[in-house]
């Protein structure tokens, strides 16, 4: 059973989510990946404004393919989140409340998520043509020179996500793998076919 959520996310929204929950996310999110994170870090160091207000917002680690004529966006799926780990605690401290990506996060990110109240969603890596159908708006708002890495404001409608890490330090990757392996052991014990 999926939970429907809309951005911006409140503390209550985030606190209601648990690792492993399925979510359909709608509303505005911002794309930023490697190069945009480096520039955001430079903005913070130099006390310059960020391209968007972070409070309650969600960053999608994604660089879509170019938008073909007659479409809203090209194919869009998540990139590997851990490459953004170094920048993430500073963004969480400034109000960022959610991230969408793929793969596990480092311990410092999970701790900062607990401290500030934030959620990390996993999108289905490699399902980019399917997920493009959940994007109803796309506009470059900063750093157009970065091409696929520019910061884009996306409007989502029911993007299917899994809560990969919650605001309580739980991690769906570790939990899911453990639960599966336990089910294998249980089957061995009962002699059921795999």
């Amino acid at each position, binding site marked *: 059973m999926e939970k429907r959520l809309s951005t911006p996310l409140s503390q209550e929204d985030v606190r209601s989510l648990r690792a492993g929950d399925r979510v359909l996310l709608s509303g505005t999110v911002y794309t930023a990946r490697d190069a945009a994170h480096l520039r955001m870090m430079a903005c913070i160091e130099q006390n310059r404004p960020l391209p968007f207000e972070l409070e309650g917002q969600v960053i999608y680690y994604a660089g879509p393919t170019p938008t*073909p004529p007659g479409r809203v966006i090209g194919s869009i799926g998540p990139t590997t989140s851990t490459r953004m780990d170094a920048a993430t605690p500073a963004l969480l401290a400034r109000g960022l409340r959610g991230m969408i990506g793929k*793969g596990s996060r480092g311990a410092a990110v999970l701790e900062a998520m607990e401290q500030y109240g934030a959620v990390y969603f*996993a999108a289905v890596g490699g399902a980019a043509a399917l997920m493009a159908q959940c994007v109803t708006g796309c506009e470059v708002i900063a750093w157009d020179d970065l091409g696929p890495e520019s910061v884009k404001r996306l409007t989502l409608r029911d993007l299917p996500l*899994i809560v990969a890490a919650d605001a309580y330090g739980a991690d769906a990757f570790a939990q899911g793998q453990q639960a599966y392996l336990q089910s294998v052991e249980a089957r061995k014990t009962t002699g059921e076919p795999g």
Partner: protein
Amino acid sequence: MREIDAEQIASTVARLCVEANRELPADVTEALAAAGMAEPWAPARDMLDILSRNAVIARETAMPVCQDTGMAVVFAEVGQDLHIAGSFEEAVHEGVRRGYTEGWLRKSVVGDPLERKNTGDNTPAVLHTRLVPGDRLTLTVAPKGFGSENMSRLKMLVPAQGVEGVRAFLMETVRLAGANPCPPMIIGMGIGGDFEMVAELAKRALLEPLDQRNPDPRYAALETAWLEEINGLGIGPQGLGGRTTCLGLHILTMATHIAGLPVAVNISCHVTRHKTAVI
């Protein structure tokens, strides 16, 4: 002597770039479907179903299967009795430039690894050329995404480590990759040769059909046993748990030095794209 124009190479490479990115090879879609049938874990089955549906949507809407349309890896087998009018290598890069621009594919290449300015047209390609008998030109375009490429590893083992050392390095590499390379993975392994050749062997192993095993029964047995072991790790689709961690594993080997046992593990995802044409 047979002659072809470089322009024909450019237009062929351009077409292969687009086709490879929009349509998964049949062996991959079949492996995904088979994995779904064999998957005992319901959440993992759901993930595999999403990937299968995505491949259909990509084909029907002429959109790339994955947003990471990769660095264009091109394998060329040039017949030694063939004359190419114009620059062969320029034609390959021009084909990539055209395919990625006209096909609405993502430009994911930066010109200098440290300065990191996007070249804007996905060039240059990574080009592997072999001279072969005959007067034909075989071109394979294999766009490679870097979510999985980043998880690949190479190690110069010592001979005493033997087959167990190779196995342990493979399993360590898969565990370290975990959820990052968008499992289910497809894995290419090189064993032997020297430092650079073992990496090329691993890359070429990704082109092998998933339903075929190494012709040498010893290596065929290792492919089967190691695939089974990987699918017992529990990583599962997207790393969220399940049986289907890897759809296929191929090993390519080469003679090596008395002092060495090079091994390379090239990790790829289910979007292991490649398209071939013969001119």
